[in-house]
């Protein structure tokens, strides 16, 4: 230690070190061990900046696409693209897969190709202007809920208006348009995109965050990884340390976080095309992503389902415009949760968390009611559509009531 160091230590001595309060060391050790056991080591190659597989020859891709479409036509495609050890321990996940050897790899290749095609398409759209904060957007949703599991069951349509800033929403109440103003003030002009997004998820904050992301996939994923890590920390801080160490791979957390941003941006007519393209490119670089093509969504349109958990929770993308149009959840065959589990915690399924985070108050209340119902023994078989929300229409309008 030199004199400078010693002088500072003498003048600014900190309090003596203390042990953790009694029992806390063991408690935190236990949490850490549990966390490590549910998220065991994966490949030690660094994904960020790591090498990517070469683009396969076109004829191989055609064969892969045909195989995947066939799998989709048979019902749904569950793959084992992630190692079983990286899955949550039992409870809500199947322990077997209908995937044949080699199919998982094919799915992963197909997912990457579809997402890259989507990215290329969006990148050609060019620059579109960001809507003004006060711009009203009309959106029509079509929901589906499985009878006995989601209440209300069946197909329902809804319509609502929201300003791009998210400050105001409008909806029909007793035949009249009711307007609601958010209690959360919009961020000031000097607030940075991530800070604004972390304060309130709105179409504008989602748009701005997307626009701020790097276009290089690995750099983008690094930013997302940092933000996702922050989310975990917040979960721990919110008083749920077990949920905060939810058994998810790093890739799944990044996919979920990107999905959350894209979903919130979608209600505001999507993010900047180049930014959405970059997000898709980044998703394509993640291990374990699968796609299901040829989906007919609840609104009757065609969709591509992109998933990070083998197809149970899917982000729906329009196969023509490649914009995000919806989300859906398929049955694991076991049941997603029990009534005793906290609805807003990480103990719910990833798909439900995505739903809750991206929904309006009314939509959220509806889903929470459904989710709190105790699941009976007659839970729908694996692969059955449980719930779905599709944006059937989103359009800028002058005022609430216009379509």
């Amino acid at each position: 230690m030199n004199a400078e160091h010693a002088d500072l230590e003498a003048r600014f001595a900190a309090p003596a070190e203390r042990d953790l309060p009694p029992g806390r060391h063991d408690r935190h050790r236990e949490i850490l061990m549990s966390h490590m056991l549910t998220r065991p080591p994966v490949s030690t190659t660094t994904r960020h900046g790591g090498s990517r597989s070469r683009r396969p020859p076109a004829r191989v891709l055609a064969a892969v696409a045909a195989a995947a479409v066939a799998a989709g036509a048979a019902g749904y495609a569950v793959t084992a693209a992630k190692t079983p050890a990286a899955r949550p321990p039992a409870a809500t996940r199947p322990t077997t897969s209908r995937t044949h050897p080699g199919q998982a790899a094919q799915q992963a290749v197909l997912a990457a190709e579809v997402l890259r095609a989507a990215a290329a398409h969006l990148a050609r759209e060019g620059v579109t202007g960001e809507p003004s904060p006060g711009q009203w957007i009309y959106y029509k949703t079509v929901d589906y809920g499985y009878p006995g599991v989601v209440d209300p069951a069946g197909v329902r349509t809804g319509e609502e208006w929201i300003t791009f800033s998210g400050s105001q929403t409008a909806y029909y109440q007793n035949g009249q348009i009711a307007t609601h103003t958010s209690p959360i003030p919009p961020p000031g002009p000097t607030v940075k995109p991530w800070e604004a997004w972390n304060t309130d998820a709105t179409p504008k904050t989602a748009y701005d965050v997307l626009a701020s992301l790097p276009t290089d996939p690995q750099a983008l994923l690094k930013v997302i990884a940092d933000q996702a890590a922050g989310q975990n920390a917040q979960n721990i801080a919110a008083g749920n340390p077990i949920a905060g160490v939810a058994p998810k791979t790093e890739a799944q957390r990044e996919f979920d976080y990107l999905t959350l941003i894209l979903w919130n941006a979608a209600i505001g007519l999507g993010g900047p095309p180049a930014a959405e393209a970059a997000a898709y490119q980044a998703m394509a670089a993640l291990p374990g992503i699968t796609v299901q093509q040829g989906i007919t969504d609840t609104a009757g349109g065609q969709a591509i389902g992109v998933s990070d958990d083998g197809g149970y929770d899917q982000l729906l993308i329009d196969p023509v415009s490649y914009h995000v149009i919806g989300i859906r959840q398929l049955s694991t065959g076991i049941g997603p949760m029990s009534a005793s589990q906290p609805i807003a915690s990480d103990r719910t399924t990833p798909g439900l968390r995505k739903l809750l985070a991206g929904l309006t108050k009314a939509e959220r209340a509806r889903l929470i009611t459904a989710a709190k119902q105790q699941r009976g023994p007659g839970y729908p078989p694996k692969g059955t559509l449980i719930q779905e929300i599709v944006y059937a229409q989103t359009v800028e309008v002058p005022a609430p009531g216009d379509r």
Partner: protein
Amino acid sequence: MDDPTSQLRGRARAGDTDAFGAVFDACARSVYNHAFRLTGDWSAAEEVMAMTFLEAWRSRERIAEDGGSLRPWLLGIATNLARGQRRAARRQRNALARLAVAGDLPDFADDVSGRLDDVARIKALHQALGGLTRPELEVLALCVWSGLGYAEAAEALGIPVGTVRSRLSRARAKLGKLTERELRRTSRELPTGPGQLVAGPAIAGLSGTSSKEARR
């Protein structure tokens, strides 16, 4: 005595959970106290400590194959996490309360008084060191309060050794005229609010035992 974590570096990097458990045993206390010195809040420090090891596990691939103790690396993670801690202070207090209930942990009332004294003292120090930038404070906390060498602090913060030196040097220059008397006066002027202590006798002992001395 050699730091036991030096021998665990390879196993920790490879994802050996037992090795990580041993690293936790060896370093949790140090990380906890470092986090307290940065946040001035024992509850927040506990959260930072817990998050540090979860983050360390997540980013274990970043452990270099060769090197010494893992403590600098862990203190670096804790430093980063502590930066965002004040914003979430209220949530963390709630978290600790819930954790205590859920874990059915014993009370530590006997320890409370001393911990409150620590809070008052560290707040006085933060007040006195208010002229430092955050990076300067972090270097001071690592080198002076946690006893890291310059190279270790550089490893912790991911900055060149020369930068550690210059930051510490700048810190000392800025604090050059600050005397013990001024420190005492600063501590008396601490604002009081809900849950905050009035600086009292504990603050008078500003020349008390340093963390480094206590470990010896």
